[in-house]
Protein backbone atom coordinates (compact mmCIF):
# COMPACT_ATOMS: atom_id res chain seq x y z
CA UNK A 1 0.00 0.00 0.00
CA UNK A 2 1.15 3.49 -0.83
CA UNK A 3 0.67 6.54 1.39
CA UNK A 4 -1.18 9.38 -0.33
CA UNK A 5 -2.20 12.08 2.10
CA UNK A 6 -2.74 13.09 5.66
CA UNK A 7 -6.44 13.92 5.88
CA UNK A 8 -6.99 14.91 9.52
CA UNK A 9 -4.49 16.00 12.16
CA UNK A 10 -5.15 15.31 15.87
CA UNK A 11 -6.43 18.85 16.45
CA UNK A 12 -8.82 18.53 13.52
CA UNK A 13 -10.19 15.29 14.93
CA UNK A 14 -10.70 17.03 18.25
CA UNK A 15 -12.54 19.90 16.53
CA UNK A 16 -14.70 17.55 14.51
CA UNK A 17 -15.74 15.64 17.59
CA UNK A 18 -16.54 18.82 19.45
CA UNK A 19 -18.74 19.90 16.58
CA UNK A 20 -20.47 16.52 16.48
CA UNK A 21 -21.08 16.67 20.24
CA UNK A 22 -22.74 20.06 19.83
CA UNK A 23 -24.83 18.81 16.92
CA UNK A 24 -25.96 15.78 18.91
CA UNK A 25 -27.03 17.98 21.82
CA UNK A 26 -28.81 20.29 19.48
CA UNK A 27 -30.58 17.57 17.56
CA UNK A 28 -31.54 15.73 20.72
CA UNK A 29 -32.50 18.94 22.46
CA UNK A 30 -30.10 18.31 25.34
CA UNK A 31 -28.38 15.26 26.77
CA UNK A 32 -31.39 13.82 28.58
CA UNK A 33 -31.81 10.03 28.18
CA UNK A 34 -29.13 10.07 25.49
CA UNK A 35 -26.79 7.08 25.23
CA UNK A 36 -23.87 6.21 22.99
CA UNK A 37 -22.88 2.83 21.54
CA UNK A 38 -19.49 2.43 19.97
CA UNK A 39 -18.98 -0.15 17.25
CA UNK A 40 -15.83 -2.23 17.59
CA UNK A 41 -13.01 -1.27 17.36
CA UNK A 42 -12.53 2.48 16.92
CA UNK A 43 -16.17 3.38 17.41
CA UNK A 44 -15.71 2.65 21.13
CA UNK A 45 -13.09 5.35 21.95
CA UNK A 46 -15.01 7.75 19.74
CA UNK A 47 -18.17 7.11 21.78
CA UNK A 48 -16.20 7.62 24.99
CA UNK A 49 -14.77 10.90 23.74
CA UNK A 50 -18.17 12.15 22.60
CA UNK A 51 -19.66 11.22 25.98
CA UNK A 52 -16.91 13.22 27.72
CA UNK A 53 -17.50 16.23 25.47
CA UNK A 54 -21.24 16.12 26.03
CA UNK A 55 -20.61 15.97 29.74
CA UNK A 56 -18.33 19.03 29.42
CA UNK A 57 -21.00 20.97 27.53
CA UNK A 58 -24.11 19.75 29.33
CA UNK A 59 -22.93 18.57 32.75
CA UNK A 60 -24.42 15.11 32.18
CA UNK A 61 -22.42 12.17 30.97
CA UNK A 62 -24.47 9.87 28.75
CA UNK A 63 -23.85 6.15 29.29
CA UNK A 64 -21.67 4.34 26.76
CA UNK A 65 -21.86 0.78 25.50
CA UNK A 66 -19.84 -1.34 23.11
CA UNK A 67 -21.24 -3.33 20.25
CA UNK A 68 -19.68 -6.10 18.20
CA UNK A 69 -21.42 -6.69 14.90
CA UNK A 70 -19.58 -9.89 13.89
CA UNK A 71 -22.54 -12.18 14.51
CA UNK A 72 -24.68 -9.85 12.37
CA UNK A 73 -22.42 -9.65 9.35
CA UNK A 74 -24.13 -10.59 6.09
CA UNK A 75 -21.09 -12.37 4.65
CA UNK A 76 -20.35 -15.03 7.27
CA UNK A 77 -21.25 -17.89 4.96
CA UNK A 78 -18.91 -16.62 2.25
CA UNK A 79 -15.74 -15.50 3.92
CA UNK A 80 -12.56 -17.54 4.11
CA UNK A 81 -11.19 -16.02 7.27
CA UNK A 82 -12.92 -16.26 10.59
CA UNK A 83 -13.53 -12.94 12.35
CA UNK A 84 -13.05 -12.89 16.09
CA UNK A 85 -16.24 -12.35 18.04
CA UNK A 86 -15.69 -9.43 20.41
CA UNK A 87 -17.49 -8.21 23.42
CA UNK A 88 -20.91 -6.60 23.30
CA UNK A 89 -21.54 -4.78 26.56
CA UNK A 90 -24.41 -2.37 26.95
CA UNK A 91 -24.99 -2.28 30.70
CA UNK A 92 -28.12 -0.11 30.50
CA UNK A 93 -31.54 -0.52 28.96
CA UNK A 94 -31.66 0.40 25.31
CA UNK A 95 -35.43 0.59 25.20
CA UNK A 96 -36.96 4.05 25.06
CA UNK A 97 -33.67 5.95 24.72
CA UNK A 98 -32.19 7.91 21.88
CA UNK A 99 -29.00 6.03 20.99
CA UNK A 100 -26.05 7.34 18.99
CA UNK A 101 -24.15 4.59 17.17
CA UNK A 102 -20.57 5.68 16.58
CA UNK A 103 -17.98 4.35 14.17
CA UNK A 104 -14.79 5.65 12.63
CA UNK A 105 -15.55 5.33 8.90
CA UNK A 106 -18.83 5.06 7.01
CA UNK A 107 -18.25 3.23 3.72
CA UNK A 108 -20.62 0.64 2.20
CA UNK A 109 -23.10 0.94 5.06
CA UNK A 110 -23.02 -2.78 5.81
CA UNK A 111 -21.48 -2.37 9.24
CA UNK A 112 -24.11 0.23 10.15
CA UNK A 113 -26.84 -2.11 8.90
CA UNK A 114 -25.49 -4.95 11.06
CA UNK A 115 -25.18 -2.59 14.02
CA UNK A 116 -28.80 -1.52 13.66
CA UNK A 117 -29.93 -5.15 13.62
CA UNK A 118 -27.81 -5.94 16.64
CA UNK A 119 -29.04 -2.91 18.51
CA UNK A 120 -32.72 -3.62 17.96
CA UNK A 121 -32.15 -7.20 19.18
CA UNK A 122 -31.03 -5.69 22.48
CA UNK A 123 -34.14 -3.54 22.96
CA UNK A 124 -36.31 -0.91 21.29
CA UNK A 125 -34.50 2.45 21.20
CA UNK A 126 -36.63 5.55 20.89
CA UNK A 127 -34.47 6.70 18.02
CA UNK A 128 -31.08 5.77 16.59
CA UNK A 129 -28.53 8.24 15.25
CA UNK A 130 -25.35 7.42 13.41
CA UNK A 131 -22.18 9.41 14.06
CA UNK A 132 -18.96 8.82 12.10
CA UNK A 133 -15.59 10.51 11.99
CA UNK A 134 -15.21 10.06 8.22
CA UNK A 135 -17.78 9.43 5.49
CA UNK A 136 -15.92 8.20 2.45
CA UNK A 137 -18.92 7.49 0.22
CA UNK A 138 -19.60 4.34 -1.93
CA UNK A 139 -22.73 3.27 -0.06
CA UNK A 140 -24.18 -0.12 -0.97
CA UNK A 141 -27.24 0.25 1.27
CA UNK A 142 -29.69 3.13 1.83
CA UNK A 143 -27.93 4.37 4.94
CA UNK A 144 -26.69 7.85 5.84
CA UNK A 145 -24.96 9.34 8.85
CA UNK A 146 -26.62 11.95 11.04
CA UNK A 147 -23.30 13.37 12.21
CA UNK A 148 -20.13 13.39 10.12
CA UNK A 149 -16.68 14.64 11.15
CA UNK A 150 -15.41 14.92 7.60
CA UNK A 151 -16.85 14.05 4.21
CA UNK A 152 -13.98 12.57 2.24
CA UNK A 153 -14.54 11.76 -1.42
CA UNK A 154 -12.44 8.66 -2.23
CA UNK A 155 -11.98 6.16 -5.00
CA UNK A 156 -12.70 2.51 -4.30
CA UNK A 157 -9.02 1.63 -4.55
CA UNK A 158 -8.17 3.99 -1.73
CA UNK A 159 -7.97 3.02 1.92
CA UNK A 160 -8.88 5.33 4.79
CA UNK A 161 -6.81 4.65 7.91
CA UNK A 162 -8.11 6.09 11.16
CA UNK A 163 -5.65 6.03 14.05
CA UNK A 164 -6.73 6.84 17.58
CA UNK A 165 -4.58 7.16 20.68
CA UNK A 166 -6.64 4.58 22.58
CA UNK A 167 -6.39 1.86 19.95
CA UNK A 168 -3.35 2.75 17.87
CA UNK A 169 -1.10 4.80 20.13
CA UNK A 170 -1.17 7.67 17.66
CA UNK A 171 -3.74 10.00 16.24
CA UNK A 172 -4.67 10.99 12.67
CA UNK A 173 -6.57 10.06 9.53
CA UNK A 174 -4.65 9.03 6.41
CA UNK A 175 -5.44 8.16 2.83
CA UNK A 176 -3.59 5.25 1.27
CA UNK A 177 -3.68 3.71 -2.20
CA UNK A 178 -4.14 -0.05 -2.37
Amino acid at each position, binding site marked *: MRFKARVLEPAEIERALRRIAHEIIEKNKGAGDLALVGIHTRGIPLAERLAALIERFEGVRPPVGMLDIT*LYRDDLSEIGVQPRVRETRIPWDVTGRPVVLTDDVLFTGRTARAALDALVDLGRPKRVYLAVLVDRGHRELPIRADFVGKNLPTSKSEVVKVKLRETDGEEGVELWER
Partner: protein
Amino acid sequence: MGALRHLLDFAGWDRARVESLLETARMMEEVLERPMKKVPALKGFTVATVFFEPSTRTKISFELAARRMSADVVGFSGAGSSLAKGESFKDTLLTLQAMALDAYVIRAPVAGMAHQAARWLTGAVVNAGDGRRAHPTQALLDAYTLLEELESLEGKKIAIVGDVAHSRVTRSNAELLPLLGAEVWAAGPAGLLPERLAGARLSTDLDEALADADAVMVLRLQRERMDEGALPSLREYVAEYQVTEARLARAKPHAPLLHPGPMNRDVELEGALADGPRSRVERQVRAGEAVRMAVLYHLLVGRAA
Protein backbone atom coordinates in the same frame (compact mmCIF):
# COMPACT_ATOMS: atom_id res chain seq x y z
CA MET B 1 -2.62 -23.12 13.89
CA GLY B 2 -4.81 -23.79 10.89
CA ALA B 3 -8.56 -23.44 10.83
CA LEU B 4 -10.58 -25.99 12.75
CA ARG B 5 -12.15 -28.42 10.27
CA HIS B 6 -13.69 -30.91 12.70
CA LEU B 7 -13.92 -31.28 16.44
CA LEU B 8 -13.13 -34.95 17.03
CA ASP B 9 -10.82 -34.77 20.04
CA PHE B 10 -8.03 -32.45 21.14
CA ALA B 11 -5.22 -34.02 19.15
CA GLY B 12 -3.15 -31.19 17.71
CA TRP B 13 -4.72 -28.49 19.87
CA ASP B 14 -2.69 -25.90 21.68
CA ARG B 15 -3.49 -23.53 24.49
CA ALA B 16 -4.12 -20.60 22.16
CA ARG B 17 -6.81 -22.48 20.29
CA VAL B 18 -8.52 -23.53 23.51
CA GLU B 19 -8.44 -20.01 24.87
CA SER B 20 -9.74 -18.53 21.64
CA LEU B 21 -12.65 -20.96 21.61
CA LEU B 22 -13.50 -20.35 25.26
CA GLU B 23 -13.30 -16.60 24.64
CA THR B 24 -15.85 -16.95 21.85
CA ALA B 25 -17.99 -19.01 24.21
CA ARG B 26 -17.97 -16.13 26.69
CA MET B 27 -19.17 -13.84 23.91
CA MET B 28 -21.89 -16.37 23.12
CA GLU B 29 -23.00 -16.52 26.70
CA GLU B 30 -23.66 -12.76 26.49
CA VAL B 31 -26.11 -13.57 23.69
CA LEU B 32 -27.83 -16.05 26.02
CA GLU B 33 -28.27 -13.30 28.60
CA ARG B 34 -30.21 -11.07 26.20
CA PRO B 35 -33.99 -10.87 26.14
CA MET B 36 -33.73 -11.93 22.48
CA LYS B 37 -31.44 -14.98 22.60
CA LYS B 38 -30.70 -15.27 18.92
CA VAL B 39 -28.18 -13.95 16.43
CA PRO B 40 -28.20 -14.34 12.65
CA ALA B 41 -24.60 -15.58 12.41
CA LEU B 42 -25.34 -19.04 10.98
CA LYS B 43 -28.30 -18.09 8.81
CA GLY B 44 -28.16 -20.27 5.74
CA PHE B 45 -26.16 -23.04 7.41
CA THR B 46 -27.72 -26.42 8.15
CA VAL B 47 -26.60 -28.51 11.09
CA ALA B 48 -27.53 -32.17 11.48
CA THR B 49 -27.58 -33.92 14.83
CA VAL B 50 -26.89 -37.57 14.10
CA PHE B 51 -27.39 -39.67 17.20
CA PHE B 52 -26.65 -43.39 17.00
CA GLU B 53 -26.98 -43.55 20.77
CA PRO B 54 -29.74 -41.87 22.74
CA SER B 55 -28.85 -38.71 24.62
CA THR B 56 -31.61 -36.20 25.04
CA ARG B 57 -29.56 -33.61 26.90
CA THR B 58 -26.65 -33.38 24.53
CA LYS B 59 -28.94 -33.38 21.52
CA ILE B 60 -31.07 -30.57 22.91
CA SER B 61 -28.02 -28.57 23.86
CA PHE B 62 -26.54 -28.79 20.35
CA GLU B 63 -29.86 -28.11 18.63
CA LEU B 64 -30.49 -25.11 20.79
CA ALA B 65 -26.98 -23.82 20.20
CA ALA B 66 -27.46 -24.12 16.45
CA ARG B 67 -30.86 -22.42 16.56
CA ARG B 68 -29.58 -19.57 18.72
CA MET B 69 -27.23 -18.87 15.84
CA SER B 70 -30.08 -19.10 13.27
CA ALA B 71 -28.83 -22.31 11.66
CA ASP B 72 -31.37 -24.77 10.33
CA VAL B 73 -31.32 -28.02 12.26
CA VAL B 74 -32.22 -31.53 11.20
CA GLY B 75 -32.04 -34.51 13.49
CA PHE B 76 -31.43 -38.19 12.98
CA SER B 77 -31.74 -40.76 15.75
CA GLY B 78 -30.87 -44.39 15.11
CA ALA B 79 -30.68 -47.21 17.60
CA GLY B 80 -27.24 -48.66 18.19
CA SER B 81 -28.49 -52.15 17.47
CA SER B 82 -28.97 -51.35 13.79
CA LEU B 83 -25.23 -50.79 13.51
CA ALA B 84 -24.54 -54.45 14.10
CA LYS B 85 -26.81 -55.55 11.32
CA GLY B 86 -25.43 -53.79 8.34
CA GLU B 87 -23.81 -50.80 6.84
CA SER B 88 -26.39 -48.32 8.10
CA PHE B 89 -23.80 -46.09 9.74
CA LYS B 90 -21.99 -45.00 6.60
CA ASP B 91 -25.16 -45.16 4.52
CA THR B 92 -26.96 -42.88 6.94
CA LEU B 93 -24.15 -40.36 6.80
CA LEU B 94 -23.96 -40.42 3.03
CA THR B 95 -27.72 -40.00 2.75
CA LEU B 96 -27.54 -36.94 4.99
CA GLN B 97 -24.58 -35.65 3.02
CA ALA B 98 -26.67 -35.76 -0.14
CA MET B 99 -28.86 -33.11 1.51
CA ALA B 100 -25.98 -30.64 1.43
CA LEU B 101 -25.53 -30.13 5.16
CA ASP B 102 -22.78 -28.02 6.64
CA ALA B 103 -22.11 -29.69 9.97
CA TYR B 104 -22.77 -33.06 11.53
CA VAL B 105 -22.99 -33.42 15.27
CA ILE B 106 -22.39 -37.11 15.85
CA ARG B 107 -23.05 -39.19 18.95
CA ALA B 108 -22.01 -42.80 18.55
CA PRO B 109 -21.59 -45.85 20.77
CA VAL B 110 -18.15 -46.92 19.56
CA ALA B 111 -14.79 -45.15 19.78
CA GLY B 112 -13.58 -43.82 16.46
CA MET B 113 -16.97 -43.38 14.79
CA ALA B 114 -16.57 -39.61 14.68
CA HIS B 115 -13.19 -40.04 12.99
CA GLN B 116 -14.70 -42.46 10.50
CA ALA B 117 -17.48 -39.99 9.77
CA ALA B 118 -14.97 -37.20 9.24
CA ARG B 119 -13.26 -39.38 6.63
CA TRP B 120 -16.46 -39.83 4.66
CA LEU B 121 -18.11 -36.43 4.98
CA THR B 122 -17.15 -33.14 3.40
CA GLY B 123 -18.87 -31.05 6.08
CA ALA B 124 -17.62 -30.32 9.56
CA VAL B 125 -17.95 -33.15 12.09
CA VAL B 126 -18.48 -32.43 15.76
CA ASN B 127 -17.92 -35.38 18.03
CA ALA B 128 -20.76 -35.35 20.54
CA GLY B 129 -19.34 -38.44 22.24
CA ASP B 130 -18.00 -41.61 20.57
CA GLY B 131 -17.88 -44.66 22.78
CA ARG B 132 -15.18 -44.32 25.40
CA ARG B 133 -13.03 -42.15 23.15
CA ALA B 134 -13.92 -38.50 23.43
CA HIS B 135 -16.57 -35.98 24.31
CA PRO B 136 -14.79 -32.75 23.49
CA THR B 137 -17.65 -30.29 23.98
CA GLN B 138 -18.23 -31.70 27.46
CA ALA B 139 -14.58 -31.10 28.33
CA LEU B 140 -14.78 -27.59 26.88
CA LEU B 141 -17.82 -26.76 28.98
CA ASP B 142 -16.09 -28.23 32.02
CA ALA B 143 -13.05 -26.05 31.33
CA TYR B 144 -15.32 -23.05 30.84
CA THR B 145 -17.08 -23.68 34.14
CA LEU B 146 -13.81 -24.31 35.96
CA LEU B 147 -12.19 -21.16 34.59
CA GLU B 148 -15.15 -19.11 35.75
CA GLU B 149 -14.69 -20.51 39.25
CA LEU B 150 -10.92 -20.64 39.50
CA GLU B 151 -9.95 -17.85 37.06
CA SER B 152 -6.91 -19.81 35.94
CA LEU B 153 -6.26 -23.53 35.81
CA GLU B 154 -2.49 -23.08 36.04
CA GLY B 155 -1.25 -25.55 38.66
CA LYS B 156 -4.79 -26.36 39.77
CA LYS B 157 -5.59 -29.90 40.84
CA ILE B 158 -8.73 -31.28 39.26
CA ALA B 159 -9.94 -34.62 40.63
CA ILE B 160 -12.11 -36.83 38.43
CA VAL B 161 -13.81 -39.67 40.26
CA GLY B 162 -15.57 -42.81 39.10
CA ASP B 163 -15.61 -45.13 36.10
CA VAL B 164 -12.52 -43.67 34.48
CA ALA B 165 -11.81 -46.57 32.10
CA HIS B 166 -15.10 -46.24 30.25
CA SER B 167 -15.29 -42.47 30.43
CA ARG B 168 -15.01 -40.35 27.31
CA VAL B 169 -15.51 -37.32 29.53
CA THR B 170 -12.34 -38.19 31.43
CA ARG B 171 -10.35 -38.86 28.28
CA SER B 172 -11.32 -35.51 26.81
CA ASN B 173 -10.67 -33.65 30.04
CA ALA B 174 -7.30 -35.38 30.40
CA GLU B 175 -6.45 -34.09 26.92
CA LEU B 176 -7.82 -30.59 27.42
CA LEU B 177 -7.25 -29.44 31.00
CA PRO B 178 -3.46 -29.97 30.98
CA LEU B 179 -3.31 -27.61 27.96
CA LEU B 180 -4.55 -24.96 30.37
CA GLY B 181 -1.98 -25.90 33.01
CA ALA B 182 -4.20 -28.07 35.20
CA GLU B 183 -3.06 -31.22 36.96
CA VAL B 184 -5.67 -33.92 36.42
CA TRP B 185 -6.17 -36.79 38.85
CA ALA B 186 -8.46 -39.67 38.02
CA ALA B 187 -9.58 -41.97 40.80
CA GLY B 188 -11.72 -45.07 40.77
CA PRO B 189 -11.79 -48.78 41.55
CA ALA B 190 -8.95 -50.86 40.08
CA GLY B 191 -11.24 -52.55 37.57
CA LEU B 192 -12.48 -49.21 36.28
CA LEU B 193 -9.08 -47.59 35.77
CA PRO B 194 -7.10 -47.92 32.54
CA GLU B 195 -3.47 -48.97 32.89
CA ARG B 196 -2.34 -45.54 31.76
CA LEU B 197 -4.05 -42.35 30.71
CA ALA B 198 -1.96 -39.61 29.17
CA GLY B 199 -2.64 -36.30 30.89
CA ALA B 200 -3.90 -37.77 34.16
CA ARG B 201 -2.50 -39.31 37.32
CA LEU B 202 -4.38 -42.46 38.19
CA SER B 203 -5.17 -43.59 41.69
CA THR B 204 -7.38 -46.11 43.41
CA ASP B 205 -7.26 -43.94 46.53
CA LEU B 206 -10.11 -41.45 46.51
CA ASP B 207 -8.79 -39.52 49.48
CA GLU B 208 -5.43 -39.04 47.79
CA ALA B 209 -7.14 -37.72 44.67
CA LEU B 210 -9.39 -35.38 46.63
CA ALA B 211 -6.64 -34.02 48.88
CA ASP B 212 -6.34 -30.26 48.25
CA ALA B 213 -8.23 -30.58 44.97
CA ASP B 214 -9.30 -27.24 43.51
CA ALA B 215 -12.30 -28.84 41.84
CA VAL B 216 -13.97 -32.25 41.77
CA MET B 217 -15.67 -33.87 38.82
CA VAL B 218 -17.84 -36.90 39.55
CA LEU B 219 -18.58 -39.38 36.75
CA ARG B 220 -21.74 -41.29 36.18
CA LEU B 221 -21.51 -44.96 37.16
CA GLN B 222 -23.03 -47.13 34.44
CA ARG B 223 -24.85 -50.00 36.04
CA GLU B 224 -24.00 -52.32 33.15
CA ARG B 225 -20.42 -52.45 34.50
CA MET B 226 -21.76 -54.76 37.19
CA ASP B 227 -23.17 -57.15 34.56
CA GLU B 228 -19.86 -57.12 32.72
CA GLY B 229 -18.07 -58.07 35.91
CA ALA B 230 -15.86 -54.99 35.78
CA LEU B 231 -17.24 -53.90 39.13
CA PRO B 232 -17.96 -56.63 41.66
CA SER B 233 -20.24 -54.79 44.05
CA LEU B 234 -22.23 -51.60 44.05
CA ARG B 235 -22.16 -51.60 47.84
CA GLU B 236 -18.39 -51.67 47.79
CA TYR B 237 -18.27 -48.87 45.22
CA VAL B 238 -20.50 -46.65 47.30
CA ALA B 239 -18.46 -47.33 50.43
CA GLU B 240 -15.12 -46.67 48.77
CA TYR B 241 -15.78 -44.12 46.04
CA GLN B 242 -19.00 -42.23 46.63
CA VAL B 243 -18.18 -38.53 46.89
CA THR B 244 -19.67 -37.32 50.14
CA GLU B 245 -19.68 -34.10 52.11
CA ALA B 246 -17.27 -35.69 54.59
CA ARG B 247 -14.80 -36.79 51.96
CA LEU B 248 -15.02 -33.45 50.17
CA ALA B 249 -13.58 -31.89 53.30
CA ARG B 250 -10.20 -33.02 51.98
CA ALA B 251 -10.57 -30.82 48.92
CA LYS B 252 -9.99 -27.06 49.03
CA PRO B 253 -12.77 -25.12 50.75
CA HIS B 254 -15.51 -24.24 48.28
CA ALA B 255 -13.95 -26.47 45.60
CA PRO B 256 -16.70 -26.64 42.97
CA LEU B 257 -18.37 -29.94 42.18
CA LEU B 258 -19.07 -30.88 38.58
CA HIS B 259 -20.97 -33.80 37.04
CA PRO B 260 -21.53 -34.44 33.34
CA GLY B 261 -25.00 -35.81 34.02
CA PRO B 262 -27.26 -37.60 34.19
CA MET B 263 -26.64 -38.25 37.86
CA ASN B 264 -27.25 -41.36 39.94
CA ARG B 265 -27.95 -39.67 43.22
CA ASP B 266 -26.57 -41.54 46.22
CA VAL B 267 -24.50 -43.78 43.98
CA GLU B 268 -21.54 -41.80 42.70
CA LEU B 269 -22.27 -38.85 44.92
CA GLU B 270 -24.20 -38.09 48.05
CA GLY B 271 -27.61 -36.88 46.93
CA ALA B 272 -27.62 -33.66 48.91
CA LEU B 273 -24.36 -32.53 47.31
CA ALA B 274 -26.01 -32.33 43.92
CA ASP B 275 -28.12 -29.39 45.10
CA GLY B 276 -25.62 -28.00 47.55
CA PRO B 277 -23.57 -24.81 47.30
CA ARG B 278 -20.59 -26.54 45.69
CA SER B 279 -22.63 -27.95 42.85
CA ARG B 280 -22.08 -26.34 39.45
CA VAL B 281 -24.24 -28.81 37.59
CA GLU B 282 -26.74 -26.23 36.37
CA ARG B 283 -23.95 -23.86 35.48
CA GLN B 284 -22.45 -26.60 33.31
CA VAL B 285 -25.67 -26.93 31.35
CA ARG B 286 -25.70 -23.26 30.31
CA ALA B 287 -21.97 -23.25 29.70
CA GLY B 288 -22.61 -26.20 27.40
CA GLU B 289 -24.91 -24.18 25.21
CA ALA B 290 -22.46 -21.29 24.94
CA VAL B 291 -19.53 -23.61 24.24
CA ARG B 292 -21.47 -25.42 21.52
CA MET B 293 -22.42 -22.12 19.91
CA ALA B 294 -18.74 -21.21 19.89
CA VAL B 295 -17.78 -24.59 18.43
CA LEU B 296 -20.30 -24.22 15.60
CA TYR B 297 -19.09 -20.69 14.94
CA HIS B 298 -15.45 -21.78 14.84
CA LEU B 299 -16.19 -24.73 12.58
CA LEU B 300 -18.54 -23.08 10.13
CA VAL B 301 -17.53 -19.45 9.76
CA GLY B 302 -14.45 -18.87 7.66
CA ARG B 303 -14.67 -22.30 6.01
CA ALA B 304 -15.27 -20.82 2.56
CA ALA B 305 -12.48 -19.99 0.09
